[in-house]
Structures are given as C-alpha cells and as structure tokens.
C-alpha cells in the first residue's frame, strides 16, 4: 500500500500545476460549503435566539381562548391577575424570569407620517427586558409609573424621523373593539440588532398599556424565560392548568423552526451541486491522466498488475487529490468563516420582506463540528466517486491496446 501511495503521489507530482488546481477546485467547493453551512447555521441560531429573547420567550402562558393572530384584547381572552400567575411561574426551578405582557396592535402618527406598530405592555422592572434595556441608544428606559412615555426602536425612529423627546400620537385597539388615541413622548430609542423587530415594536409600561386598551389588570400572556432552552419541555408539565395554554418557543416560532428543518434538507442539494461541479474537474483531470499514461498502464499490466490493482492506483490518486483539496478547503473555508463569525455579513433583511421571522442585521457564521465533519466526508466521498470512472477505465484497458498507445 505504501508503494501504491508513493506511486500515486509521484504521478500527481508529474503535472503539479494541474494537480494543484484540481485539488483547489475541490478545496474551493468545500470552502463554499463550509461557508454556506455556517451561514445557515449562524443565521438560524441567531434567529431562534433572537426570537426567543425578543418575541416569544422560551414559553408563554395564555388563556385557552387567546388567539394570537387577532391580538385579542377581550377580557375573557386575557389572563386575570397576571402578576400573581407570573410570580407562581417564577417560583419553578428552571424558570429564570416570568413577566406579564400585554399585546395590542396600533399605529404611531407624527405630523408627517404614520406607521403600523405592535404595542407591547411590559413590566419595566423585569429582567426579561434586558435585550431592550441593553440596546438603549438614546434617552432612558421606561419606569412603571410613566403614563406618557413610550419606547420605540431605531428602525421606526429613522423611518418617522423621531428622536427622544418628540411627541407622537399612538392609536391602539381596545378591549371594547374601538380605537383609542393618546399623545406620548418618546422616552428612548432602543436597538435589538433586528431592524425587522425594531421597526415594528413600541413599548409602554404595562399599567399604561392596560389602561389605554381597557384591559384593566389583565395581560395577554406571561412571558417566561428559562435558565436553559433545553429545559423547555421539562417545564411545560409544571405549567399546565385548566383554562390556560402553554406555548413553547417552537410553537411560537413555527415558521422559523420549519425553515431550519427544511434548510437542512434542501441544503444537501446545494452541497451536491457544488461538489458535482468540483467533481467534474477531478474526473477530467483523472481521465486526462489515464489517457496520458495509457502505455504505462500497459506496462504495469504486462508485468502482472491486475485490473483491480490498477484501479486502486488511480483511486489512490483521487484520494490524495481529495485530501489536498480538503486541506485547502478547510484552510480557505476556516479563514473566511472565522472572519465572518467575528465581523458578520451585512443583511438588509427588511428589504427581503420576510415576515414572521426575526433576523439580525448581520449574519454571524457558526461552523459546527458536525457540519465540518459531514461536509469533509462528503467532499472526500464525492471525489472518490468522481475518480471511480477514470479508475475503471484504466482497469479495463487491454494490455495490447495500451502498449500500442503513443507515449
């Protein structure tokens, strides 16, 4: 085997430039795959994490009749004594924080423009608000007793040309099915890193939101964050109670979860297309090599080498090309992925009009060991498969015909 390796290695060395570029083709393909996989992984991880932190929490407890699509504010759809419910939930071990939230739809109007928004009533003191509090770009965060202030996101502020201290009119749907309107002062502007979220979400103190919408002391949901996402399923059982529904982050981000599952399967086709293109380079190189070395194949055959042994030589050459390509691919891909995991890829996702999913404004690549191993193995196998046809071609040559070939 060592002799075959030596022979194969030297054969590749005969035309170093060609061998290098063949390996490079596979290397670039692998680098591209690593980049694609890490981009998807990074994006999906970020999107899920973002959706959990900003929008859904790990769990939400709602009344059994609450319909999120309608952003219902009817009293029978809302949770009574939400503070008490939240306190009970917070007492459960794996729960990090539980806080009531009230959701309403509305629109913000300035003198020149207006924009549809989602109004979220929050307990300003809750730790669940950390993503907004930490993302404050100007002004100050809300206080529980603020009756005239609201928080808006950077994207909305830019669109409506608002800054801290400006006064806007906020119109919201109420429990009675009417629309109520009130002037508010912009207390501060936050940025979560997701323009899609920041352009749509306006925060009010819970008490003010309850008063404005006529929800009285009620809330749409108790928003629950856990110490660890993996605990989600374990906590569900503890939260079951008659008249309530418990929704997990998977239920609340169904589109995102489905997209992640789908992406894993359709990406395989992209991988195979990219590898297929690289494989044609390997096939081409090896077929050229077989024809250039036809007489040598005849010589080896004449001294007693069997077809299978000839095949092994050519397959070994393909394997060496694959190893070279993989090393180049890991190097190129590793550098690019490492760079993008630090600095990210700018993403104007708002312009893509994706609704129902949150994306950060930059994609940070995330390369998992599993993806790296899978793609490396896939590249190796595809290269070997690509080398199979030339190897079979060599192994089936009749020695007499091969020996007659021009050098």
């Amino acid at each position, binding site marked *: 085997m060592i002799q075959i390796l030596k*022979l194969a290695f030297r054969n590749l060395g005969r035309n170093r430039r060609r061998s290098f570029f063949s390996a490079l083709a596979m290397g670039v393909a692998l680098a591209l795959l690593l980049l694609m996989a890490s981009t998807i992984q990074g994006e999906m991880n970020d999107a899920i994490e973002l959706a959990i932190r900003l929008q859904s929490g790990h769990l939400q407890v709602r009344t059994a009749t609450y319909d999120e699509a309608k952003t219902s504010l009817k009293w029978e759809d809302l949770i009574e004594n939400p503070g008490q419910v939240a306190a009970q939930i917070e007492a459960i071990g794996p729960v990090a924080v539980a806080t009531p939230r009230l959701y309403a739809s509305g629109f913000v109007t300035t003198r020149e423009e207006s924009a549809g928004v989602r109004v979220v009533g929050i307990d300003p003191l809750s730790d669940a608000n950390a993503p907004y509090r930490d993302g404050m770009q100007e002004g100050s965060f809300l206080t529980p007793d603020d009756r005239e202030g609201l928080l808006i996101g950077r994207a909305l502020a830019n669109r409506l040309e608002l800054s801290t201290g400006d006064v806007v009119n906020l119109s919201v749907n109420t429990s009675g099915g009417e629309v109520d309107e009130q002037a508010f002062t912009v207390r501060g502007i936050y940025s979560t890193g997701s323009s899609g979220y920041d352009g749509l979400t306006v925060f009010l103190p819970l008490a003010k939101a309850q008063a404005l919408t006529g929800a009285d002391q009620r809330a749409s949901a108790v928003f629950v964050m856990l110490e660890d996402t993996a605990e989600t399923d374990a906590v569900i059982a503890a939260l079951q109670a008659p008249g309530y529904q418990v929704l997990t982050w998977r239920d609340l981000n169904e589109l995102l979860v489905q997209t992640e599952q789908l992406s894993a399967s359709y990406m395989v086709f992209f991988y195979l297309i990219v590898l297929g293109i690289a494989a044609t380079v390997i096939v081409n190189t090896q077929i050229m090599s077989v024809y250039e070395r036809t*007489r040598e194949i005849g010589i080896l055959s004449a*001294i007693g080498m069997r077809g299978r042994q000839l095949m092994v030589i050519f397959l070994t050459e393909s394997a060496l090309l694959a190893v070279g390509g993989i090393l180049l691919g890991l190097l190129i891909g590793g550098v690019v992925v490492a760079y993008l995991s630090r600095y990210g890829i700018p993403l104007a996702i708002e312009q893509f009009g994706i609704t129902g999913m949150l994306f950060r404004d930059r994609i940070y690549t995330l390369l998992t060991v599993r993806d790296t191993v899978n793609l490396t193995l896939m590249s190796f196998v595809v290269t070997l498969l690509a080398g199979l046809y030339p190897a079979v071609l060599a192994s089936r040559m*009749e*020695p*007499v015909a091969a020996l007659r070939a021009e050098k």
Partner: protein
Amino acid sequence: MEVAKVENVTRVYAVGKVETHALRGVNLTIESGEFTALVGPSGSGKTTLLQLLGCLDRPTSGRVYISGKDVSQLNRDQRADMRRGTIGFIFQFFALIPTLTAYENIEMPLLLNGHTAGERHARITELLEAVGLGDRGASRPDQLSGGQQQRVAIARALASKPSLILADEPTANLDTPNGQQVMETMTRLNKETGVTFVFATHDPRVIGYARRVVTLRDGLVAEDKTVGKKP
C-alpha cells in the same frame, strides 16, 4: 522441457469490416533455455506471436500453452496472474515507469508477487549488478541512457525469476554499442541463469546472437533453424 507452445494459432484483427490475418495457423514449441529470434519483415506476425506467448492477447483460434498450461481462454486477470509469475517482458520502447527509480522499477514485479522487503532488496541489488548498473539504482529513467534504461528493463523482466522472457525489438531504439551491450547482457543472463529468451527482431546483428531463428512470413512459420547449441 517445454516452456511455451502454440498450436494452429490464428489471430485476426477486425477494423471495421476489414479483417487482418496477423497469424494464420502457427505451430511452435519453445524449450527451456532457448535463445530464440523471431524474424521476418514488418507485418509478418512477430509481435502478435510474442503477445500471444506473453498472454497479453488471446488467439482467435488455436491453443497457447505456457509451462504446459492452456492459456488461450484465460480472462484478463488470469492472464495477468500468469504473466506475473512466469513471463518477463522487454519492449522496443524503454518501458520503464518514469516516476519510479531504476530500483523501484525492478521492485514492481517483486511487490506484485508479494516478496518481503528483504527479499526484494537482495534480488534488486543482485539484478542491478547483473546488468552492470549497480550504482544507478537511485536514478530515474530520464537520468539514464537508452541502453541503461533497456538494461533496467531486462533486470525488471528477470526480477520474478520467470521461465520465459519475451523481447520485442529490444535494440530497435538503441545505437550500435548500446544495442550490443543489451544483447550481450541478455546472452549472458541466458547462459548464467538458463532463463528462456524469445525476441523479435529484423536486425541482422541481433539475429546473430540467436541460437534458434524462427522466420515468420505472412502469419506463418516459414523457416525454423537452429544455429547454435544450448548453453
């Protein structure tokens, strides 16, 4: 002892609808230790007969026996096995693997026959000395003259101690001194080791080394003449 034998062998090549009869019913027996020349004009069937004797090809009809075994209908791999242990080849072109050194070229048949590293080294050293290239084992073919390359090919042909060595115009691409040196090496090895040599040539100087001359004409044996004694 009979090393090779062909009985009523024909070989027809078909190119499109045109058939070429390279051999038309050849009978020939090669005995152990012979140093035989196959002579004849171009197209007389010398190379075709060598290819059949060397199990590189199969006859259209008739039988080919190597060491008493009928090899006429063996498949590709069976013929490869037969060649590996029994037959050595020397070609008109210097048929060495260019990426391997002289030493490694000679080593190849030994590797295929499963010899140990120690056995291989001893045999290669012995053969390099025998062909007068004891100091050139590390040289690649492109670092050797044509004559030296052909001597390496002789050493490789002898490596597995075959009973029959077939040479197709072994001096055709060599100048006279190198051609002489190659023929003298072959003659000496035939005498020293008793290995049977059959070579095709139309060079009168080379024919002069043969002890048996088989003349082919139009795919048939026209003359079979013994001109010297077995060593």
